């Protein structure tokens, strides 16, 4: 059995098997269990890198994997004899490989970080099991080519996340946050299932490629589009449905929040799949005219999402300025960053499908690359800030900004990492935040100048938020109660150093990243014919 042929299945199977073996290993020894979990997470990361390498060097840029039968025979029998497709597939194109790299890097760093962050807590067997289950669910969401399989992995991820958010069972607030998260996730997933049932009723297929081939834009398809975008948007924290995010991110342990960022981005990946790959050609259908605008469905969707994006950025930044709790403040900035990503993607929709401006190609490609690059950068930046907040909580056991002060004397390395995260999250050169935000600014300026102006101003407000945190936590005189604060253990510093190293590398060499990682993903997204034809043969 050749491992390289079965990589897409191994990427999901290895964390799943590791998750169920962890309690057995934990009965032997605690340190052995930690090493086993780090080994499983590292093995998943290595498998994802091999898979991404396979996808990026493939001439079509896409890899299909059929579960339960031989891939070549199944595809040949579909193309030649017209057999219906009844098996579950994983279809890995450039976008899936890109998101899978993010989705496997985040749990690895979280598991290294939680070696010493969670050392004094009990119940760590269940903690590590649930983190590996979250990894498996997240990677399954990103790689699958089947809609019902997406729903099942979404539910796996949300159940595991809800149990981990409520990890601090001695405090009431964490349990409330976990309850709110599972209620919101459950309602969103049920509406996604309703939309999947509507698709099955119309087209007798659950495979994304088969539905994308046969889809028309009738009454039921419009209902399914609204249900999918609204439910997946609620899971990705578009405003005003974002309110679960500060509760969930702010009251969970810091390493759990680090992996939760990945699951939120996986739901954003779902929005992209639905808009571009599933409904691809229908969004360009001709609509009625309103003056000089051509009201195609793509333009309407893009206009609605642009309004939501601007509201998200505003609400995120304004509420962040008011907060007193450190992790809740960073969570509101995370909401604003999701607004930036949504702004980029809705600018792509507006310029591709409603465009009357001359250079739609350049604008849409730049906005798409900016949005996708910002997904990776946001995961790294906000993740680093959450790790620093966790380090501050570990050292001082305080979370309120009013009681902290003067920590730069004792925690030098944490200060440096916070400075790197500050510059990166607010889009200052030479960090990676600037490289992706300048793509977003320049492309949304060509769609409408006001969008770009709002984006730049709110970036400056994000800088104001973090300068406030830096002043009140690290600078200033020493507090009497905080005199014995020591630097955090070296393993936590190591995990923060890994993320900072990647941030600085992306900031200094953005063209390497964009040409090798982002361009295949952007190509795969705007051209869904390759996605369809790799399963159904040439149409």
């Amino acid at each position, binding site marked *: 059995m050749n491992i390289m042929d079965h990589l897409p299945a191994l990427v999901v199977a290895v964390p799943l098997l590791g998750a169920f073996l962890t309690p057995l290993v934990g009965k032997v020894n605690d340190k052995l269990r930690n090493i086993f979990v780090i080994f499983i997470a590292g093995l998943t990361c290595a498998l994802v890198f091999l898979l991404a390498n396979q996808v990026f060097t493939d001439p079509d840029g896409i890899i299909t994997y059929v579960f339960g039968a031989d891939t070549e025979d199944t595809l040949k029998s579909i193309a030649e004899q017209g057999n219906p497709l009844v098996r579950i597939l994983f279809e890995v194109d450039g976008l899936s490989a890109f998101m899978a790299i993010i989705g496997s890097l985040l749990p690895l760093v979280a598991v290294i970080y939680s070696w010493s962050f969670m050392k004094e807590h009990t119940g760590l067997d269940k903690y590590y099991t649930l983190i590996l289950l979250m990894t498996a669910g997240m990677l399954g969401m990103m790689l699958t080519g089947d809609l*019902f399989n997406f729903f*099942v992995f979404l*539910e796996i991820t949300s*159940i595991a996340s*809800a*149990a981990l958010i*409520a990890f601090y*069972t001695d*405090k*009431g*607030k964490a*349990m*409330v946050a*976990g*309850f709110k998260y*599972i*209620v919101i996730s*459950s*309602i969103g997933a*049920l509406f996604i*299932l*309703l939309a999947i*049932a509507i698709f*099955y*009723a119309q087209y007798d297929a*659950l495979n994304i490629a088969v539905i994308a081939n046969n889809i028309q834009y009738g009454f039921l398809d419009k209902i399914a589009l609204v249900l999918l975008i609204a439910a997946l948007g609620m899971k990705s924290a578009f405003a005003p449905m974002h309110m679960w995010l*500060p*509760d969930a991110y702010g009251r969970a342990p810091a390493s759990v929040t680090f992996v939760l960022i990945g699951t939120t981005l996986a739901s954003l990946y779902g929005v992209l799949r639905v808009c571009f790959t599933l409904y691809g050609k229908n969004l360009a259908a001709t609509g009625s005219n309103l003056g000089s605008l051509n009201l195609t469905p793509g333009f309407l969707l893009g206009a609605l999402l642009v309004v939501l994006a601007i509201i998200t950025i505003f609400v995120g930044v304004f*509420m962040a300025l008011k907060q007193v*709790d450190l992790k809740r403040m960073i969570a509101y900035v995370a909401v604003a960053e999701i607004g930036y990503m949504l702004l980029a993607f809705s600018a792509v929709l507006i310029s591709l499908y409603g465009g009357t401006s001359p250079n739609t190609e350049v604008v849409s490609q730049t906005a798409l690359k900016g949005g996708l690059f910002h997904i990776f950068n946001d995961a790294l930046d906000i993740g680093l800030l959450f790790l620093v907040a966790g380090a501050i909580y570990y050292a001082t056991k305080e979370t309120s900004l009013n009681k902290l002060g003067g920590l730069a004397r004792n925690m030098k390395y944490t200060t440096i990492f916070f400075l790197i995260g500050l510059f990166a999250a607010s889009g200052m050169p030479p960090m990676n935040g600037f490289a992706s935000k300048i793509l977003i600014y320049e492309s949304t300026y060509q769609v409408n100048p006001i969008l770009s102006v709002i984006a730049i101003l709110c970036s400056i407000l994000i800088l104001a938020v973090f300068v406030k945190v830096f002043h009140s936590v690290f600078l200033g005189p020493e507090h009497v109660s905080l005199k014995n604060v020591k630097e955090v253990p070296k393993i936590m510093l190591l995990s923060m150093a890994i993320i900072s190293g990647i941030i600085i590398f992306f900031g200094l060499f953005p063209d390497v990243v964009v040409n090798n990682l982002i361009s295949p993903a952007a190509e795969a997204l705007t051209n869904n014919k390759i996605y369809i034809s790799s399963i159904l043969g040439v149409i």
Partner: protein
Amino acid sequence: MIYNIPYFAVIALILIGLYAILFRRNLIKIVIGITLIESGVNLFLITLGYREGSTAPIYTLSPGGIMSMPVPQALTLTSIVIGVAVLALMLSFIIHIYRHYKTLDVRKIGGDD
């Protein structure tokens, strides 16, 4: 017309479930609302597979006649199992919340901002 009654039942179940989630203050009633929405979606899935005059799709050597579609029934089984797991998780959260806050009123457990 009579074959459309299950679809009306689906819409009624989903709307009643949404009403329970939006306008009821007791945490357990909110969870019951989620269960109602889940029942509505499962009913929708099963109704899609019905063909007129068909039998259950469980025979290997069929006695003749058509059978209703088995794929939606498999999807519904998966969804019921997921619903049971989520329901158990939500109820265990409610037990812990009651121990901490001594109340089940959703407005009082709101927390800070």
